[in-house]
């Protein structure tokens, strides 16, 4: 049976797409760190910020390195990882807020990072000397990331304000370790 190039391409597409989406945004050592801080928002949320920031720093490095191979794909993948980590950060924030944990300090770290992330993502969007063909390969994920960070920045500020209000009425759990009986390793 003769297999045409078109059929080959069609057969390859799902596996390529699969391979692209199957990467875990965290490395195993990072997962270990996240796991060990599961009951301590003051430690865990800044870790997500740190790992998300590391993806954007790496992004700047690969984009400024003239020897980078397949720059559009690497840009796409790092932005995708950033988005996944940022979503996971937000899910964790929701969990801690639902538990009435006091996350004011961690939220301030997140809010500071939001400003930095916005600036870095916009710098990438406005970067000069990028061909249209290259930009198209990561445009969707970049716009998605910018939109997510923009919306979340407002949410984080509102949450901090809500937490300050709750703290005034002593309605926040200040020590989640005591509350749960589980200590970070």
């Amino acid at each position, binding site marked *: 049976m003769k297999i045409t190039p078109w059929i080959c391409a069609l057969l390859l597409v799902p596996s390529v*797409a699969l391979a692209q989406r*199957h990467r875990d945004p965290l490395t195993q050592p990072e997962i270990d760190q996240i*796991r060990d801080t599961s009951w301590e928002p003051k430690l865990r949320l800044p870790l997500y910020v740190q790992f998300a920031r590391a993806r954007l720093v790496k992004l700047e490095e690969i984009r400024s390195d003239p020897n980078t191979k397949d720059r559009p794909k690497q840009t796409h993948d790092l932005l995708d990882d950033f988005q996944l980590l940022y*979503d*996971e950060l937000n899910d964790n924030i929701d969990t801690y807020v639902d538990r009435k944990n006091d996350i004011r300090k961690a939220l301030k770290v997140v809010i500071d990072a939001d400003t930095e992330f916005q600036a870095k993502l916009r710098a990438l969007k406005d970067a000069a000397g990028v061909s249209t063909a290259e930009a198209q390969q990561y445009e969707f994920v970049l716009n998605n990331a910018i939109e997510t960070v923009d919306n979340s920045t407002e949410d984080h500020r509102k949450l901090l304000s809500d937490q300050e209000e709750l703290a005034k009425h002593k309605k926040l759990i200040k020590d989640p370790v005591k509350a749960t009986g589980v200590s970070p390793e």
Partner: protein
Amino acid sequence: MLVAAGMAKTEPTVEELKARLSAANAGDKVKICVQIAEKQVAETSRLYQADDIAKGQSALTDVVSYSELARDYSLQVRKHQKQTEIAVRTMSRKLTELLHSLGRDDQAPVRDAIDRLEKVRDDLLASMFPKGAK
């Protein structure tokens, strides 16, 4: 009390949903399977967090099985592919977050489940965009 009873009525249990499945038409089967899978994702997380790994793995098996069934019914009737893909994507994300809270020894089944959910997504996407547009 009445309000609570009313709410309980709108939130069927997994067992009730499974019982409804055989009598439902193919279109409704897609939605019921997604509902079961979503409920079992929450149950999986709860059981794993409570260190009840054996029961957690059983719930995890349901997540994958019913997601795959939802895909099969969806492809059969050529309906609900988009909603199913979005639901499976959310479930995959929740399982990834669960994975990040587990020790290395407990990660393999969850990782395998995520891989299978991603395959479900791929199949649904391929049916919606037959030429492979991502």
